[in-house]
């Protein structure tokens, strides 16, 4: 039995996003950072009774344009990368609407560098966030 906090009470009840919805991950876009953040999620939360192996992303769901997400959610990040719900879904990833919109958790098959590499392969090139509140 896992001793983390169940994520289930924090799952929003909403319609699954369409395949065309954009998925945004803020920088640094590196395998090491994905592994680090997954480990933190796994330490704190469980999903279906097991440690939750997942990484946070934001989705362009209703009311949340890419520009709004970059300015309000990613303001501290100078770089980001995007993919689509359809790309992740067709590759077998589960997207769970957790905490507050537009936040989602992408469930990974395992907490490993290999899993992080596989996930990042579905994202496009690293882009500059023109809405950042940073000097560089």
């Amino acid at each position, binding site marked *: 039995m896992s001793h983390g*906090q169940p994520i289930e009470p924090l799952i929003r009840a909403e319609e699954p996003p369409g395949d065309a919805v954009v998925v945004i991950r803020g920088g640094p876009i590196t395998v090491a950072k994905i592994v680090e953040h997954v480990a933190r999620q796994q*330490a704190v939360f469980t999903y279906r009774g097991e440690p939750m192996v997942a990484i*946070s992303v934001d989705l362009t769901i209703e009311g949340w344009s890419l520009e709004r997400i970059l300015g309000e959610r990613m303001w501290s990040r*100078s770089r980001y990368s995007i993919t689509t719900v359809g790309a992740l879904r067709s590759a077998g990833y589960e997207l769970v609407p*957790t905490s507050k919109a537009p936040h989602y958790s992408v469930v990974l098959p395992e907490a490993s560098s290999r899993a992080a590499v596989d996930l990042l392969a579905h994202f496009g090139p690293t882009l500059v966030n023109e809405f950042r509140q940073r000097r560089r």
Partner: protein
Amino acid sequence: MSASSIEVDIPCDPQQMGEFAMPFALLSEARDPSRIAVGAIVITADDEEPVFARVHAITSQGDGPSVVHLDLLPGDPLDYADALRRSHLLPA
């Protein structure tokens, strides 16, 4: 800022949201856990793009880890440093 010389107080993923709909960190990952208290101002995120945050709450579930909930403060930390110098709260 040179990333190699930056040391955050407590690392987090600014995009990750937990039970308070704000980023969270593990107390065990703090550089000096004794400095992490509710209301404390800390440097968080990562050494490439650090940000200021105020510690909103520290929670734990059963024998799980102590979780630090972070209210991110807007803007670049260097903007705060500039403002402090302008007002002579810090030496120029």
